[in-house]
C-alpha cells in the first residue's frame, strides 16, 4: 500500500481517536492541576426559619458566595500543581503509618485511595482466574454435550451476561439482604442469625461471586467458538499416540486457545479494574469502595452543590495508570508473539 493511500485510510480513525480519546485525556490531565472555586464573602445577614407559632430570625455573620450582578456566582480558577494527587495519595499519612507505632497496613487501608486500590486489585486478580477457569469449563462441557441440547445450553449459559449489571447486582442483593429469601433459607438450615450485609468480607465475597457469575458467559462464548476450530487431525493423532483426556487438553486444546485466553484476560482486567456497578448495586460504600467509585463520589455534587473536579480528574488519571501497569505483562506477551510471527 502506498503511504498516501494508507494515510487516507487511517486518517478518519486517527482524527476520531484524537477527538474522543486523546483530547479528553489531556483535558482531564490539565483539570487535575487546577481548582475552580467560589469567592466567599462574610456578611452579617438576617435569616428567618419557621418555628412554632412564630418564625425564628437570627442575625449573624455568615460566609456566602459572592454573587455576580447579572446572576450567577463569582468563581476563580487557580493552578494547584500536584495538590489533588497529594490529597489522594496522602504521602504524609502513609509515611506516618509505616513509622514505628503507626499502624502499618491497617492504617494505610483506612485512607480512601488505598482502601479502594486494595479492593480493586483483589477483586480484579481473584475474579480473573475464576472467570477464565469457569468459562473454559462451561465451554468444554457444552462442547461435549449432545448436539441437540447445545442450543438450549448455550442460551441458558449466556443469560447472566445479558442482564444489566446494576440490575443483576440488585437482584442478588435483595436475595441476601436482611431477611431475603436466601438468607432466610440459610438461617433455617444453619439455625442461626445471619447478616451478610453487616460485614465487609461477606459483601466482598458476594461481589466477587456476582462478577464471576456475570462475566463467565463471555469467556465461555469466546472459548466455545475457538473450540470449534481445534484441528481435529491433531486431536485424533493425539488419541492414537495414547494421550489421555487431560493431556489432550493440556497439549492440544489449551495451546490452541492461548491467544484467546490472553484476549479474555486483557478484556477482563480492563473491565474489572473499573469495578463500579457492584459497589452501587450492593450499597457497599460503608465497607468496600473501588477506584472508579471514588472518582464517581468526587464528581457527585456534595451538600453545597460543589463537585471536586480536580480530585476526580487526579483519581481517574491514577486509575488509568493502574490499568496500564496491570496490562503491561499481557501486552508484552502479545507483542512478543507478534514479533515471532513476522
Amino acid at each position, binding site marked *: 500500500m502506498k503511504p498516501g493511500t494508507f494515510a487516507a485510510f487511517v486518517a478518519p480513525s486517527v482524527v476520531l481517536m484524537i477527538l474522543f480519546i486523546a483530547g479528553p485525556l489531556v483535558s482531564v490531565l490539565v483539570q487535575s492541576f487546577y481548582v475552580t472555586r467560589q469567592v466567599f464573602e462574610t456578611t452579617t445577614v438576617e435569616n428567618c426559619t419557621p418555628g412554632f407559632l412564630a418564625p425564628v430570625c437570627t442575625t449573624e455573620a455568615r460566609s456566602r458566595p459572592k454573587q455576580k450582578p447579572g446572576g450567577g456566582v463569582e468563581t476563580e480558577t487557580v493552578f494547584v500543581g500536584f495538590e489533588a494527587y497529594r490529597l489522594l495519595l496522602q504521602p504524609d499519612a502513609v509515611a506516618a503509618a509505616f513509622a514505628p507505632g503507626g499502624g502499618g497496613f491497617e492504617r494505610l487501608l483506612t485512607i480512601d485511595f488505598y482502601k479502594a486500590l486494595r479492593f480493586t486489585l483483589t477483586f480484579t486478580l481473584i475474579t480473573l482466574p475464576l472467570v477464565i477457569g469457569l468459562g473454559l469449563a462451561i465451554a468444554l462441557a457444552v462442547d461435549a454435550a449432545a448436539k441437540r441440547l447445545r442450543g438450549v445450553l448455550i442460551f441458558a449459559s449466556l443469560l447472566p451476561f445479558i442482564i444489566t449489571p446494576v440490575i443483576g447486582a440488585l437482584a442478588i442483593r435483595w436475595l441476601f439482604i436482611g431477611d431475603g429469601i436466601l438468607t432466610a433459607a440459610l438461617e433455617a438450615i444453619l439455625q442461626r442469625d445471619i447478616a451478610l450485609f453487616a460485614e465487609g468480607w461477606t459483601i466482598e465475597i458476594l461481589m466477587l461471586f456476582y462478577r464471576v457469575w456475570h462475566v463467565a458467559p463471555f469467556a465461555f462464548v469466546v472459548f466455545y467458538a475457538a473450540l470449534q476450530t481445534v484441528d481435529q487431525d491433531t486431536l485424533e493423532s493425539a488419541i492414537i499416540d495414547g494421550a489421555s483426556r487431560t493431556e489432550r487438553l493440556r497439549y492440544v486444546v489449551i495451546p490452541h486457545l492461548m491467544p484467546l485466553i490472553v484476549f479474555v484476560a486483557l478484556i477482563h482486567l480492563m473491565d474489572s479494574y473499573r469495578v463500579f456497578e457492584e459497589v452501587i448495586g450492593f450499597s457497599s460504600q460503608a465497607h468496600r469502595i473501588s477506584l472508579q467509585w471514588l472518582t464517581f463520589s468526587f464528581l457527585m455534587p456534595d451538600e453545597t*452543590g460543589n463537585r471536586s473536579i480536580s480530585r476526580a480528574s487526579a483519581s481517574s488519571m491514577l486509575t488509568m495508570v493502574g490499568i496500564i501497569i496491570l496490562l503491561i505483562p499481557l501486552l508484552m506477551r502479545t507483542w512478543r508473539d507478534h514479533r515471532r510471527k513476522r
Partner: protein
Amino acid sequence: MLKTILAAALVSTALAGPAYAACAFRNDVPIKSLTAAFDAWKAVTAAMAECGNVQAELDQEFRRKQPDAFAANPALYQLGGVANGTLTPLLNAGTIRPLDDLVAKYGQNLTPNQLIRIDGRIMAVAMMVNAQHFMYRSDILQELGIQPPKTYDEVLAAAERIRASGKMQHPLGGTFKAGWDLAQEFNNMFLGFGGSFTNANNTPAVNGPAGVRALEMLKRLSTYMDPEYLAADSTAVQRSFQQGRIAMANLWASRAGALDNPAESQVVGKVAMAAAPIAMAGGKPATTLWWDGFVVARNIPDAQADAAFRVAMEGIDEEMVRANNAAAVWLIKGYQPNRLAEGAIQSAMGGAPNYPSTTVMGLMHAAIGEKIADFMTGRRDATQTLADIEASYLVKAREAGLVR
C-alpha cells in the same frame, strides 16, 4: 440510591384525583416541578395539578438533579421543592429568585412563619416542618412497664429490657445508612451534646469531647439494632416499624403518617410520638428542625415565575391541608395538629435547633458522611475518626474557596 430512583413517580394532570375542590384559576402556562416524593409532596403536587398544565416530578433523588436543572437557562423546572439542606446548593449557585414581590402579589394566605428569609429577602416559602423525633411502640413499653424514655441513656436501658424480655432481639431502629443519613444522626447527637461544628473563621471544631461522646452514643445505640444498620435508610426503618420488627427509633416526622396507614402497616395506632431524646442532662432534644417548601427558578421569564408561584400557592392552600391533615406537620392555616405531630412539636418546644442552610454545614455534613462509617465498623477510633472528618472538611472547604 437506586431504589429511590425506582420509587420516583410522575404525577401528571391526568392522574390528579377529584379529591379537592377545583383550582381557583385556570393555569395556561406549562409548569414543571421537581420535589421529593414523600406523602406531603404527593398531596401538594396533586392539588397543584388541578390548575391544569402542571407536570410534577416526585423523586427522592431530587437533591442530585436540582442544582444542574436549575442552573440551565432556561431552567428545566419552574418550581422546586427543597428543605434547609437542599436550599444551600441553589442559594450558592444563585439559581433561585427572591420571592418578595410574588409574595406581596399572591401570598395573602401565607403566615410570616412560612417565609424563609435569607439576607433579608424571601428565598423560599415553607409548607411544613420536619424533624427526626422519638417514636416508640406504646403497647410494648406499657406491657413491660417501661416509662417512655426521655434521654438517650433511658433509651438504651429500655432497649436492654425489651431485649431481655425476649420480645425482640433488635428493638432499636435508626436511619444509620452510611453517608448522609448516618451523618445526620451524628449531627443530631453532636448538637445534643452541646457541640458546635466550626469556629468563627470556618475552621472545623468537631474533634472535641462532644464529638467523642456523640460517636460513642451512636455506637452504643447500634448494638441494639439489626447488624445491617449501615444500610438502613428512612424507608427501611419505616418498614421495620410497620412490620413490627423494632420498638423504638428516632425517625422523621414525615414518616409518621405511614405507620398509621392500615394498607401497609401492622402497627396502626400502636406507635406513639415524643420529643427527640435528650443526650445529656440539661440539654436540648438531640435533633434538628427542618422545613420543606417551594423555591422558584431564576432563569425563567417573569410571566412563568408568576404562574408557577400562583400554582404553588394553590398547592399549599387550606383546602389541601384539610384533606391531608395527617400527611405532615403543616405550617399552613387550617392545620389541626394531631397525635402524629406531637413529636415534632415537642422537639421544637424543647428548643431543638434549626438545621442551618449554610455552605459550612453542607461541607461538614458531607465530610462526616464520608468518614463516620469507619468508626462504626471499628476501623478507626473516635478521635481518629473526628480528625479524619476535620481533615476531609478542610480539603472540601479549601476546594470550595471557603477557607484560604
